[in-house]
C-alpha cells in the first residue's frame, strides 16, 4: 500500500449484507491517470466496492484508501476530489435540469460552464425541463454532465451507459470521457464498473474481473490481449480430438478447431502445427471475450 501514484487502494476488502457476503478479501490498486475497468456479472460486488470507496458502506474487514486518505475519516476531502455517477440516477422531481446543475455546482469550488453548455447541447437536453419528465437515459446524461463539469481528479462511474441510446453512448464514451482525460493528461483517473465491456474497449488501461465478490483476475488491457489468444485451425479431414495444455476453451466443429489460449499460445500453436492443419490463424481476444473466458 505504498504506491505513491495510487489514487485508489483497496486491500482485503470484505463486506456483507447481513449474512450474505457481497465482497470477499478483494484488493485493487488504481494508479493516477489510468482508466480502470471493474468488470463482473450482475451481483458480482462492483457497486458494493464503489460504495465502500465513497463511504456509503463501511467495510467489515480490509482497508480502503482514496487519494491516500481513509474515506470514512476524510469524507469531505475525498468527495471534493471525485465525482460519482450511480447506476440508478435519481433527482428531486421538482427541480429542473438547470436547477439540479445549479444545486450540484454549489457544492464544488470549480465548475466548467463551457463544458456544461457544450454537453447540454450535445445531449440535446432542455435546461428548463423538470427532472421528473426526463427519461432514464436523460437522467443519466444529466448525472454525467454533473460529474464532468467540476473536472474532478477521479471519476467513479457505476454502469454509466445503462439506459443511454447507442448514439449518445458512443458520444459519451469516445468524446466526453476521452475529452475529460485529455483535459489534464496523466492526472485524471477513471474507475468504471460495467458489464458492457465492448463499449469501453478502447479506453480501458487496466481492469479487474470480479465474480461473487472475489477477484478473478487483474490485468493491463494490452497484457490481456497478448495473453489471451483465439486460435483457429482448419484441417483437411475431421479436426483431431487432442487435448491442449493451457487451453481455456476448445470447440470442435467438423474440420475446424477453435481454442482460447491463456498465456500458452506459442506452445499450443507448436502442438497444432505438428498436426499439419490446412490453415492456422491467431487473433487477440477482445476484453469482453477475455471476461467471458475468465468467468467460464
Amino acid at each position, binding site marked *: 500500500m505504498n504506491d505513491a501514484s495510487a489514487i485508489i487502494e483497496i486491500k482485503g476488502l470484505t463486506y456483507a449484507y*447481513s449474512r450474505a457476503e457481497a465482497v470477499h478479501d478483494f484488493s485493487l490498486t488504481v494508479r493516477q491517470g489510468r482508466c480502470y475497468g471493474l468488470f463482473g456479472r450482475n451481483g458480482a460486488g462492483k457497486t458494493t466496492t464503489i460504495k465502500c470507496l465513497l463511504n456509503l458502506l463501511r467495510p467489515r474487514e480490509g482497508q480502503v484508501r482514496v487519494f491516500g486518505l481513509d474515506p470514512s475519516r476524510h469524507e469531505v476531502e475525498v468527495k471534493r476530489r471525485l465525482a460519482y455517477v450511480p447506476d440508478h440516477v435519481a433527482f*428531486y422531481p421538482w427541480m429542473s435540469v438547470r436547477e439540479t446543475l445549479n444545486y450540484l455546482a*454549489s457544492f464544488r469550488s470549480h465548475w466548467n460552464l463551457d463544458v456544461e453548455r457544450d454537453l447540454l447541447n450535445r445531449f440535446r437536453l432542455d435546461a428548463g425541463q423538470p427532472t*421528473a419528465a426526463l427519461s432514464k437515459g436523460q437522467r443519466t446524461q444529466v448525472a454525467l454532465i454533473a460529474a464532468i463539469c467540476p473536472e474532478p481528479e477521479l471519476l467513479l462511474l457505476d454502469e454509466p451507459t445503462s439506459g443511454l441510446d447507442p448514439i449518445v453512448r458512443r458520444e459519451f464514451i469516445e468524446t466526453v470521457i476521452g475529452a475529460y482525460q485529455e483535459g489534464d493528461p496523466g492526472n485524471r483517473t477513471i474507475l468504471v464498473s460495467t458489464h458492457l465491456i465492448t463499449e469501453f474497449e478502447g479506453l480501458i488501461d487496466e481492469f479487474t474481473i470480479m465474480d461473487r465478490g472475489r477477484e478473478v483476475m487483474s490485468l493491463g488491457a494490452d497484457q490481456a490481449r497478448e495473453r489471451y489468444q483465439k486460435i483457429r485451425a482448419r484441417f483437411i479431414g475431421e479436426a483431431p480430438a487432442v487435448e491442449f495444455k493451457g487451453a481455456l476453451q476448445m470447440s470442435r466443429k467438423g474440420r475446424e478447431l477453435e481454442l482460447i489460449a491463456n498465456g500458452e499460445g506459442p506452445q499450443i500453436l507448436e502442438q497444432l502445427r505438428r498436426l499439419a492443419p490446412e490453415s492456422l490463424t491467431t487473433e487477440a481476444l477482445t476484453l469482453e471475450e477475455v471476461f467471458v473466458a475468465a468467468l467460464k
Partner: protein
Amino acid sequence: MKRRIIKEFRPLVLPFCFALAAASCVAFFKHVERILVSEESVGFFVGLSSFALLATVILMAALSFGVEYHQRTLGLLLSQPVARFRLWKEKILVEVGAIAAVAVFLLLVHEGLKLPAGRGLIVAISSNLWPSHEIIRGSHSELDNFGYWILAGTFVLATLCSAGFWTLIARSTIGGAVFTVASESFLLLLMTAALEKLGVSDSGQIIAIEIAAICYSGIFFWLGWRKFATLQLQHFSSGEGALSSQARSPAFWFAGSFSNRLRCQPKGVSLNLIRKELRLQKPVCMIAAVMTVGWLMTLVLLWLQPGRKEFYDAILAVLTAFYVPLVALLAACVPLGEERALSVVPWQLTLPVSIRHHWLIRLGTALSVWIGLGFLLPFMLAWIASTKTSVGLFYLLQDTDNGLAMLFIAAGFLFVFSFWAITLVSNTIRAVLTALVMLPLLALIVALGFWFSAWMFNGAETDLLAALSSRGFPFLSQEVMWEFTLLFTLSVLALAALTQSLVLFRRPETSRNSILRSIAGLAAVALIVGLWCGDLVTSASHFFE
C-alpha cells in the same frame, strides 16, 4: 388470487397491528376508567388511543394505493394481465377485511372486559374525527347504541370509499389521508351549518348527515374506480411530495413567486441545502394549508352562527388536537422519507459536504418548520379566533397548569423520535408508526426502572443530595424533584435518539440488525435513566423527611 391478496395485505400489516394495539388500549382504558374513581386522567388516554385507532384506520384506507406510488410498483401492477377492475376490487376487499377485523376485535375486547355497551366507547372513538356528540349538542341520551354504531360506521364507510380516490389524486399516502379527512370534515361542517340555518331538528340533522355520507361514499367510490380505470403513468414521481411536484398550475398554492425563491443557485451550499429541505417539507405545508382553510372556514361560520359556539369550539379543538402532533411527527420525518422514496439518498451522501453539516441543516430546517407551522401557525390562528372564542393553543396559554409548555414538550418529544425513526426505517409512514410505538415503550421502560430502583437501591443518592444541599444548591426541593427527573429523562432520551440519528444518517440503508441494536440501545438508556431518576426521587423523599 390468494397470493395477490397476501401481497395487498402485506403493507397493511404494520398499521393493522397498530390498530389492534390501539383498539386494545381503548377498551383497556375504558375498563380502567370504569373501576377508577378519578376518570379525568384515564379519559385522556381513552381519547389518545381512540385518536390513534382512527388515524390508523384512515391510514390503512389510503395505504393500499399509496404504497404502490411509494414503491414505484404501480406500472408493474397495471402491466399485469389482470383486469383493472379486479385489481381495484382486491385492494378494496383487503382494506375492508382489515378494517372489519379491527372493528370485530374491538367489539370482542369490549365484550370480553364486560364494558358498558355502546355509547361511551363509540362516542370516544367517533368524536375524535366525526364530532357526532357535539353535532347533536348534548342530546347523547336520545341516541341509542345502535345510533352511535351507525355514526361510526358511516365515518368508516365514507373514509374507505373516498380514500382510494384522494390517494390517486395526491399520489401519496399522507396526501390521500389528509384530503380524505379534509373533504369529509369540510362537507360535514358546511352541511351542519346549512341544516342549522334551515332550522332542521337534531335528529333530522343526524339522518340528513347519514344520508349525505352514504351518497358521498357512493360518489367517491365511483370516482375512485373511474380514476383507477383511466389512470395514466405520466411523469413519474413518488413519495409524499408527489402531489406538489406534479403540478405547475398557477392554482396550486405553492407555485409562483415563493416557489421561485426556493430555487437552487450555483453558489451557497448551506442555502441550497435549506432550500432543498424546505421543498421537501411540501407535504407538511400542504397539511398546514388545509388546516388553515378549515380553521378560517369554521371561524367564519362561528361569526355567522354565534349560537353554535360550543359546536364550533369543539371543531377547532379537534383540529388543533389533530394538527399539532401530526405536524411534529411529519416535519421531522418527511424530508428523509421523501428522499428515500425518490432514491436520492446514496447520491446525496456522495456530495462533498460533511454529513454532520447536512444533518444539522436537516434538523434545523425541520425544527423551524415544526415551530413555525406546528406551533406559531395554530397559535396565530387561535389568536385570530380569540375575539370570538378562547380555543386551541391560545386557550392552553391561559391554562394555569402550564398546558402550552406541556404540549410543546410532548410535541417536541414526538418530533425528536420521528426524526430518529426515519433514519432507521425506509419510509415516512413506518417512521411515524415506529415513533408512536417507541414512545409508550420507552415510557414503560423508564417506569420499570423507577420501580426497580426502589427495590434495588432504596435511596443511594441521599448522600449526594445532602452534599448538594450543604453547598446551597438551588432548586432542591421535593416538589421540584419530580419536574427535574421528568425533564432530565426526556432530555437524555432525546439526546440519545438524536445521537443515534446522526450515526445512522451516514448510512443510505439500514439493516434489521442495526434497527434492533438502536432500539435496544435506547431501551438501555431509558432503563438506566429510569433507575437513576427513581433512586433520586426515593433519596429525595428520605432526605427531605
